[in-house]
């Protein structure tokens, strides 16, 4: 006869609503703290508003609009070649290492191609991350080398 475990006391169920239940005292503190900070910032924001606006407009004058078609073509090419280069010179053994490498490639991309917008860069980073985490690390280098070669051929 198999021994059966006695039924234990029923565990109280935790709903997501109670998990994220608000603490009224903390909510009050947060509201006051953010209000106070806003009041403290107010004079600075007010007194510098015009200068800030003028500064941005002056920067616009010195910033010609980019040729987005060229940027979009350069973007995957740069990303692939940088990842291949980084993988070739690094021994990657874990997902966190790969993750940090991709973050650094994304930073390098920003330095090399400042015209690439932050939004695009984060898209590329998540694309690379997804690709990298789905494939064994050892397969990455040859695959991306082929991809980089294909892109560079297309770019030529």
């Amino acid at each position, binding site marked *: 006869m198999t021994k059966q475990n006695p039924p234990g006391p029923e565990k109280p169920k935790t709903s997501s609503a109670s998990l994220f239940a608000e*603490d009224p005292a*903390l909510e009050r503190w947060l509201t006051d703290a953010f209000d106070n900070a806003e009041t403290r910032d107010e004079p600075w924001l007010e007194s510098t508003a015009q200068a*800030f606006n003028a500064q941005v407009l002056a920067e616009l004058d010195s910033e010609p*609009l*980019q040729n987005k078609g060229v940027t979009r073509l350069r973007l995957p090419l740069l990303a692939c070649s940088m990842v291949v280069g980084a993988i070739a010179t690094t021994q990657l053994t874990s997902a966190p290492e790969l993750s940090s490498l991709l973050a650094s490639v994304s930073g390098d991309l920003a330095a090399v191609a400042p015209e690439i917008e932050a*939004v695009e860069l*984060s898209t590329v980073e998540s694309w690379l991350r997804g690709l990298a985490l789905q494939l064994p690390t050892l397969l990455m280098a040859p695959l991306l080398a082929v991809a980089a070669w294909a892109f560079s051929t297309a770019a030529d």
Partner: protein
Amino acid sequence: MSSAAQEDVETPAAIIDAAKRHDKAAFSELIDLHQRAVRGYLLRLCKGDHANADDIAQNTFLAAWRNIDRFRGDGSVKAWLMQIATNEFRMAWRKRGPVFDAIDPEAAELAVQDPNTDDLDTLLGLLEPPARAALTLNSAHGYSHREIAAILELPLGSVKSLIHRAKLDLRAHLTATEATQP
């Protein structure tokens, strides 16, 4: 809580349309309408550092100018600018590292040395940047969890969890502060 998008400063469609045609006067009006919210948000992310906040705010509006034709109008202009500001902050954080360290060692040391501190920027400095951003968008700007998820480009569950953990951390520090006060 009512939707922040509903309470958003209304950006007249004419201004958006003209800005999309790269009309600088219209874009200047758009800056006037939203600079306060964007700079205020970045000020909290940068832990009260005016110079860093304005540097990133400037890059935010420059990126908005470059990408204005991508604004589809399915959300508010303010939320779209907040999304760009968050991305620009992320970029600056990666490039400048120590300035935007995940947990500011100086703030942490200050908070430990002075357990009575209840300065918001010092306490926000103890939170990791995504938690700092989520809490600020929620508590200071009134965005819902769903709206914050769209702005930070994170799953809804992650946003709820970030805000929950941030509040637990703040409560723990404030409770300790109360205990040390006479």
